[in-house]
């Protein structure tokens, strides 16, 4: 199909010119192995979580199961695009929007809606316009910008729970922060190690950054109770620490976004000037769009805006400005009451299915004959179950049963279906009896 504005002769000229300029670069003429500056390179290790997919894909056992990466699957094991997201995409198509650059901080409308979603519209700092932030490349991107920002501004360490999401460590270390941990989970009892956590928090030096998972702790799925959060809030205040929340599962944990934001909102009410990174990967199912937000509660409006201006300084030489599509989808949904309600229903649907699978898995384990205590599976919340399997057991499960989870025994409940739960239960029982 030829556009009328370009004459055929011009086109002919162009294709002739193209032929003239085509350079044949054959393999034999590229640089030789030894003359390359890269010849002495060594292989970097594979990312353990993402690398799991690759091992799984190579396995051709017909009943293989993967419960590794934290991406939701429906009961048929298929990826799930929320209907409200599809609808939002259709609305956007009809609007015929341009593809211009957005600001370094992303779309102001998106940031505004994202922050209200987690802090709550009636939150005092929101009302006082002293909560500001930037669009981020989902959780990872937000964490990295935050880490770089804090390292740039005098921080040397960050305290994370033990265990924590594996990627936290290279993110912060590459930002220039030394990662230290506070006790969090007691593997023996498969429970929160609250007493020791409080002991460790009391030892954290004044002014240090402390990272907390807002809800649905990854990988353990063990969250503090509201009473425990209260004690943490008071202690952190006394210690003069800098609280930073990683909020990746709001709405996805309990099914209720307001409930899932309670820890964060409590800290804000208690007067903490928190900072937070949000991800919309799981709750909106927008994994590949890389959409999130990084925000800060300032003592006043000017302060929060100043911090944001510094965030932009980190972002500009990193990737200039964030991708638009994910932000547009979230905005379209959250600015429309009916779509927002649809989203709440669909998000709850995902959480409900996961909780159902937890119960089912625990039942099936008992059915399979396991005498171990598997209460933690239903006690835990969110996408993952920290099974308690050790590395050897995990490997045996991979080799013998072709069930793939990460070496720490973390099982992505989202990958469990009514179709494979028996198989998984039997596999777990077999390696753990």
């Amino acid at each position: 199909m030829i556009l009328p504005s370009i004459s055929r002769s011009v086109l002919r000229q162009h294709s002739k010119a193209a032929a003239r300029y085509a350079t044949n670069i054959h393999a034999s003429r590229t640089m030789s192995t030894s003359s390359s500056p890269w010849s002495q390179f060594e292989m970097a290790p594979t990312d353990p979580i993402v690398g799991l997919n690759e091992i799984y894909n190579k396995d051709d056992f017909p009943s293989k199961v993967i419960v590794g990466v934290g991406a939701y699957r429906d009961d048929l094991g298929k990826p799930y695009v929320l209907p409200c997201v599809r609808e939002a995409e259709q609305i956007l198509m009809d609007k015929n929007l341009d593809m211009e650059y957005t600001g370094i901080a992303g779309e102001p409308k998106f940031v505004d809606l994202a922050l209200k979603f987690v802090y709550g519209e009636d939150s005092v700092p929101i009302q006082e316009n002293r909560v500001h932030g930037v669009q981020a490349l989902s959780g990872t991107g937000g964490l990295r910008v935050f880490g770089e920002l804090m390292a740039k501004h005098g921080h040397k360490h960050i305290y994370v729970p033990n265990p924590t999401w594996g990627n936290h460590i290279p993110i912060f270390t590459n930002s220039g922060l030394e990662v230290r941990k506070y006790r969090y989970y007691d593997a023996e009892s498969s429970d929160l190690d609250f007493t020791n956590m409080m002991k460790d928090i009391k030892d954290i030096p004044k002014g240090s950054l402390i990272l907390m998972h807002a809800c649905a702790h990854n990988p353990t799925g063990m969250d503090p109770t509201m009473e425990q959060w209260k004690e943490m809030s008071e202690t952190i205040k006394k210690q003069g620490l800098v609280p930073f929340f990683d909020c990746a599962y709001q709405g996805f944990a309990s099914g209720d976004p307001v409930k899932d934001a309670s820890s964060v909102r409590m800290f804000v009410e208690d007067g903490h000037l928190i900072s937070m990174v949000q991800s919309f990967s799981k709750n909106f199912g927008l994994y590949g769009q890389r959409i999130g937000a990084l925000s800060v509660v300032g003592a006043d409006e000017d302060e929060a805006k100043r911090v944001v201006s510094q965030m932009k300084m980190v972002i500009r030489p990193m990737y200039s400005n964030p991708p638009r599509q994910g932000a547009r989808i979230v905005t379209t949904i959250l600015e429309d009451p009916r779509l927002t309600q649809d989203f709440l229903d669909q998000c709850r649907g995902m959480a409900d299915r996961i909780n159902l699978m937890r119960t089912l898995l625990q039942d099936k384990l008992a059915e399979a004959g396991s005498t171990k205590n598997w209460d933690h599976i239903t006690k835990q919340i969110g996408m993952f179950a920290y099974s308690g399997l050790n590395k050897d057991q995990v490997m045996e499960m991979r080799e013998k049963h072709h069930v793939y989870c990460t070496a720490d025994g973390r099982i992505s409940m989202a990958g469990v279906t009514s179709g494979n739960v028996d198989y998984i239960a039997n596999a777990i029982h077999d390696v753990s009896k």
Partner: protein
Amino acid sequence: MATTTENLSSSIENNSDEDDEGGRAAFAAQKKHKMSPHSAGTVDRPSSIRRSSLLLSPEWDMERKSLRHLGDLDDDDQIRIAYFPNIPTIQDVATNEGDDDAPAVDVSAARRSLFKTKTHATVTSDDEWSTASVTSDSLSDFDDDDDHTVTGIWQNVPEAPPDAILGIAAAYKACEHPQKVNICVGAYRDDNGNPYVLPTVRKAEYRLLEQNEVKEYLPIEGDRDFVYCAMKFAYGREMDIENHVAAVQSLSGTGACMLGGQFLAQFWGSDHPIYVPNPTWGNHIKIFKQCGLKVRKYRYYDRSKNALDFEGMLKDIKRAKDGSIILLHACAHNPTGCDPTMEQWKEIVSLISSKSHIAFFDSAYQGFATGNSEKDAQAFRYAVSQHVPILLAQSFAKNFGLYGERVGTLSIVCGDVVQKERIMSELRSIIRPLYSSPPRHGSSIVKTILMDPALKEEYYQECAKMAIRIKKMRKKLEEALQVAGSIHDWSHITKQIGMFAYTGMDEAMCKQLTEEFSIFLTTNGRISMVGLNNSNLTYVANAIHTVTAGKTITA
């Protein structure tokens, strides 16, 4: 479709050279991997690059061991963690004086008080900023007197300097002059001054929606099909991508430069400086500094002739120590629009080869410069054919009009597939703690177009159309200036290529253009050709003539 005002300021903000000054940061010190010299050459090539347990201290090592039970790290794994070296301040940059990327807004001395009070900063020149560095004294040092439990955390954080270009965008927006013109914009505009979404892009989007495309995470290195198409597009059909090109999807051009910079800083060594042309896109300097590279400049543009300073360029590349990194704009140099000829490229490549330099090509305008995507790739394809080791940062922002979707690639040409796999593994380990994986919308669009022969043909025509309109505007501007009565030699406007023309006007002339005629541009005399159209051309030409008559447009 009208440009929304938010988009206008965004597009300008992001194409700014003269924007907020960074260049100073406090990163943790890098444990340098001291590399033993390669036996075969004069260049200090890395012989064995091991990313070690350079991890700090014995305590950290114990820490690391106890972190093992996180399970994400097998016993065989080592934590590959990279530290970034101290970023040098601007004073370390050798030839930074006379930077053409001068900001549009006046320098204010109030800038200095930035770190003591909460005043808003105004833009300052590079030099001023460099002397007002952020020290840890000014921030986050919690004295006993401070109430840092809740109120003191952020109070010492200063405002970062605002973006100069954004100032121009805001001024344009606020201007009520009926004939106001924006020739600062860095995104394509059609002849009605509107943003342009390529029809093939729309078709691709529609197809993705119809196909109910999933939203799953892409692999760390991005969409493999997209990357493959992008590589064929860049290197040509005949290139053996599988065995000789390590390539990853990136966040457009900025992201690609950033990944390349990180990679080079970690694996080539931050003691090898990167040389950028003078002038260059302002963000280049910030990107590479933030990666930990020493940034130097080589002569490029001769203001006295409004042409390439070829001799100066060669001299500076030759003077650079062996194994330096040379940044080259693949075509349509930004901001000057002035490219070497093919003959000159051959000399440049030959020199780079003889000095064992690494050529880092930034290709942001392939197809958009001449209208012919094969021709626009000649420079780096030639380098590849001459066995010069190259990195290529590729952006699809301009040629596919996908600015806001952040689509690009970084590729490294290497000797064999073993090297390729290793480089890929290292690139993944850089990407994962940055943003895990790239955004999929833009890459899906490009892939859809390039993998469909009919769409691909249409695309080439749409891209050529943009390039042709720009060329027309160049010709018309030169003619209009002559008609207006200007006796200057404006031939550089038609000789230059790409989105921008480096007119040779000085700061005073540019200011006059803005103040008297409401024509908005950056003070380095760079005009954005896409801001011109048949409606405003004569007006702009007359205005330029008025401000330049009787004065010189060469330095």
